């Protein structure tokens, strides 16, 4: 993941060097299942629930979460994807390019939107996503689901569903995929 992000953030074009495997593929699967149950429990079912993955890391995770919800409840909830590049507050401070067009399949007015991302860090992406969402309608509620909460929040934002709380240093990097969660460093090339 995040090839492009590594190319665009300091140290530019750095190489990810894995150090510690924090979760293995089964851990990731179990955490996904647990979060699926929690989403159903909290919302008393799946009615009006829409999953929206944040580009790029959150999109595949949203797909797996929806599958897990389907297995548990027998309902496939609508899935969308959201690219928040145009809403970022660091436009002009670092290169910001969107990865893919946003796709929101339903009108969000009156829906319960679950934003899905792989890693929660400063909270700025989520802040941008909240602004973006309001352009698509007035959701009844917005919840946040992340596989890894690595701390270092810069805004008053907290997740509703967490795969794993992982204390990190600011300069570390967390790589999340279906194959597991790996903590490592980005080395200048």
């Amino acid at each position, binding site marked *: 993941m995040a090839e492009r992000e590594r190319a665009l953030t300091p140290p530019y074009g750095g190489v990810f060097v894995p150090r510690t495997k924090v979760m293995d593929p089964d851990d990731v699967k179990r955490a996904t299942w647990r979060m699926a149950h929690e989403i159903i429990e909290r919302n008393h079912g799946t009615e009006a629930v829409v999953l929206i993955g944040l580009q790029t890391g959150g999109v595949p995770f949203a797909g797996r979460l929806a599958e897990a919800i389907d297995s548990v409840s027998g309902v496939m909830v609508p899935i969308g994807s959201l*690219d928040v590049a*145009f809403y970022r507050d660091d*436009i002009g401070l670092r*290169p910001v*390019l969107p990865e893919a067009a*946003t796709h929101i399949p339903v009108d969000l007015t009156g829906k319960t939107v679950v934003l899905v991302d792989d890693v929660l860090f400063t909270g700025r992406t989520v802040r941008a996503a909240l602004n973006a969402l309001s352009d698509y309608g007035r959701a009844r509620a917005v919840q946040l689901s992340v596989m890894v909460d690595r701390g270092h929040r810069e805004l008053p934002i907290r997740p509703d569903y967490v795969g794993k709380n992982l204390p990190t240093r600011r300069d570390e990097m967390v790589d999340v995929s279906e194959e597991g969660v790996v903590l490592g460093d980005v080395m200048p090339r």
Partner: protein
Amino acid sequence: MTATVRAPDDVAQDVAEDVAEDVAESPVPIARLSTAKPGKRQHLLSVADLGRDGIEEILRLTDMFAEVSARPIPRVPALRGKTVVSLFFEDSTRTRLSFEMAAKRLSADTMSFSVSTSSVKKGESLRDTVETIEAMGIDAIVVRHSAAGVPWQVANWTEGASVINGGDGWHEHPTQALLDCYTIRQQRGRLDGLRIAIVGDIRHSRVARSDVLAFTALGASVTLVAPPTLLPSTLVGWPVDVSYRLEEVLPSCDVVYLLRLQRERMQEALLPSLREYTATYGLTRQRARLLSPGALIMHPGPVNRGVEIAAEVADQPNSVITRQVRNGVAVRMSVLYLMLGSGVDLGA
């Protein structure tokens, strides 16, 4: 690659020889496409500067701005606090409105400059005008001028602001070429391998020059179709074929791109009459039937209905003229964002 000339008759043959003579005298070819990875790009002056990678990056981004334009609230805060000025020394409807709408959809502020109500009327020079505008603290200037090269001059005079060529004389109109590429790609999925005929007043057309560069950069093959008097005096270095018979080209082309007959730029008698032009080079209903099904009909506008294109043909389903205009806004959002917001090298 050079132009291959298929002359149908003696007149054309003579012209071809004239062209060959002119070539010896004027070695200025059409611009060569950049293949180098450019550094941070401040200005958009020519399609050639972008290179294939730059064009494709803009088309990729345009998909995202097309999605923004389709939203219930078609506006993103990406360029909040930026100011875009349109500096038009020549008349325009779509380019100017399109740039202004693009800037507004990115939440930038816009200012509009028209010569007829400005101090240019009192004799203020172009340079002083540009420096005055820049002193107000603007971020981008979209320039249109009847003289080729003015955007380059303006770019030399500005310090921080980005300069975008909105059409200079007969020379270039890069954002038109980009929106044309986007429209073709949207309709046909790609440009690579497509055969595109550009028909009409090539000589006076900045659209034709930018389109030839952009279409061929993306792998399309281009045939110019025009009476010899409406071709440029030299086609050296143009990666195109030339034909003088529209009927021969129509059946095999995937896109027919009609140009407006620019009567305001014609200083000499280049055509016997408009009616004769329509009779030999107009896309009439009869000629439109020669097109293969699915072939696109395009026109940069404004359309002279009944001259280069029959009114009914312009309204056919395979005519994408209004779609070109719609895509123009998204393409210009993409250009403005890349110049002012992204902080990214266009060629990267």
